[in-house]
């Protein structure tokens, strides 16, 4: 409304004077108690939906009997070596300034860098790769930069790798051991406990950078190779198991049902039984694979119950089928007068039962198409 007025109508004076008039009218009505006018205005001039602090509570803070002033005072910092004097605001209570060191002085920690004397250098530290000068420089930098070797390596006058520097520095370990009156005293010291191994470190960092710098392409390739290897080992196991039981079950069952056919005087010739497996083998290759792996896992068990084995094989054979198909298989079994779980689960009965289930499954699958 205001914007429209201000922009639309060139009479800018009138709206503002109108506002000025209305505002003082509104304000005395809405002036809140408990919080100052400016603060209240910060909330947008409206009361908050849910007052978080009870307004009556706010003024209740009892006036403390201490007299508090804030003063601009000088201070010294024990962490500093020079005598620089700075100033800051200090909360003064009853005219007494606070005592004690500068509160941040305690954070000034430093590393205890081992320092050697010249004789010690002569005795223990001479090294063909390093001059005394360089070693001194190194140690000085270590002290200055608190053993931050990345920085030290950067600042080092001659180019040395971080590992080399570390290696040289950690030679001071030798000094410690030498200095110590007895080895046991010093064995607790971290420098002595974990010696620095240059070659291992170099290797480690190299391997790390290789892993880090692997491109997405390489990663994918590695994953592919691993998956392929796994698949090969799995199929090898499955094919080994598949070759053995598949054959005896098929041939055993074939001869069995041929016998039964003769006994029952049925017209269906035994040849039809042999013909059938070839026709049905195509749809059931996946079933064979599952059965093979189930058989392999059964063999892993030292002992099991025949009913358990049958359950597993049935599950494996029906793994590709949905719940509805499984129900239809069971329905078919019932219609044929076959128990869903054989009452006398001998090896032969279980084999027959399994084959029957597989055939029904195949039949149903074919009917669906």
């Amino acid at each position, binding site marked *: 409304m205001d914007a429209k007025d201000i922009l639309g109508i060139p009479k800018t004076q009138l709206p503002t004077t109108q506002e000025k008039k209305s505002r003082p009218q509104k304000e005395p009505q809405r002036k809140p108690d408990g919080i100052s006018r400016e603060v209240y205005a910060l909330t947008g001039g409206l009361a908050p939906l849910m007052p978080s602090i009870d307004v009556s509570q706010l003024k209740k803070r009892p006036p403390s009997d201490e007299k508090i002033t804030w003063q601009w005072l000088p201070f010294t910092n024990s962490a500093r070596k020079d005598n620089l004097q700075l100033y800051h605001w200090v909360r003064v209570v009853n005219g007494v300034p606070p005592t004690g060191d500068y509160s941040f002085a305690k954070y000034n920690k430093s590393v205890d860098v081992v320092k050697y004397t010249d004789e010690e250098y002569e005795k223990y530290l001479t090294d063909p790769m390093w001059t005394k000068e360089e070693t001194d420089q190194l140690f000085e930098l270590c002290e200055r930069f608190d053993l931050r070797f990345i920085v030290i390596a950067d600042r080092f006058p001659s180019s040395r790798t971080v590992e080399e520097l570390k290696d040289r520095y950690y030679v001071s370990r030798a000094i410690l051991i030498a200095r110590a009156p007895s080895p046991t005293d010093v064995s607790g010291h971290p420098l002595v406990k974990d010696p620095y191994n240059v070659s291992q470190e170099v290797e480690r960092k190299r391997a790390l950078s290789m892993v880090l710098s692997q491109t997405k392409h390489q990663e994918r390739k590695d994953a592919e190779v691993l998956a392929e290897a796994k698949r090969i080992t799995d199929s090898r196991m499955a094919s080994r198991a598949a*070759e053995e039981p598949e*054959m005896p079950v098929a041939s055993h069952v074939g001869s069995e049902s041929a016998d039964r056919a003769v006994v029952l005087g049925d017209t269906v010739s035994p040849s039809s039984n042999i013909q059938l497996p070839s*026709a049905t083998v195509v749809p059931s290759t996946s079933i064979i694979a599952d059965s093979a792996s189930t058989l392999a896992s059964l063999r892993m068990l030292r002992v*099991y*119950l*025949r009913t358990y084995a049958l359950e597993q094989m049935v599950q494996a054979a029906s793994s590709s089928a949905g719940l509805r198909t499984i129900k239809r298989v069971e329905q078919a079994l019932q219609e044929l007068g*076959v128990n869903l779980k054989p*009452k006398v689960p001998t090896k032969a009965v279980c084999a027959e039962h399994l084959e*029957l289930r597989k*055939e029904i499954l195949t039949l149903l699958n074919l009917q669906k198409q």
Partner: protein
Amino acid sequence: MTNSSSSKKHGPGQPEEIGPTLKLQRIKMSKPEEAEKRNLNKKLKDVEISIPIVYGNVAFWLGKKASEYQSHKWTVYVRGATNEDLGVVIKRAVFQLHSSFNNPTRAVESPPFELSESGWGEFEIAITLYFHADVCDKPLNLYHHLKLYPEDESGSMSTKKPVVVESYDEIVFPEPSDSFLARVQNHPAVTLPRLPVGFTLPPPVPIEDTSKRKRGDTKDHPLAQWFMNFSEADELLQLAAARQQTDSALQRMIKVAENEIV
């Protein structure tokens, strides 16, 4: 062809002549060394020992002598399917009863593996079978729901005729050790496939004199008259008939498909 380098000692007698389960050896192809290795492995893999068992319970109503908490006297057991002695394979059977029983974990250290109790409630009993050391070091669990009351409510409970519920199953040892094989090769409780010719087993350990210890078989067991008979013949017939039907249905489908293609 694959058996030329095998370790079989007895002549050219090849496994293919024995039994349908071992026909497969003929079908194997592959290189000679692999074949030999596989033959060695197959010696143990092909031979699977199975023990047909029946487990369940027999429950008698106590009739006049029945009290509120002891209305039935029942016996839960694991027996050989043909009532042979299971002690040759099973060392111990542990029956886990309902927690309301005193000492609900009952161990039976010798055959016949059975447990008798009296009570009023039906519950699931977990039976753990522990085998002899040369048989298997892992136990096997069976679960049986104790049945006391007859199926149909109208069926009057008689003190003379018990309620009997039994389940048939077979314990399978896929890769039995040689010593186990040797020990049980002629035992009636155990089912072995025909061993391939040339498969030599260590001589069987003479079976101890059974008259000296308690009978482990249940042939003349007091409850034997109530034991059910399990014959695979009926089931096989049923299955064969079912397969015939499915086969012919499949044949019809294939014919139809062929005609359509042509």
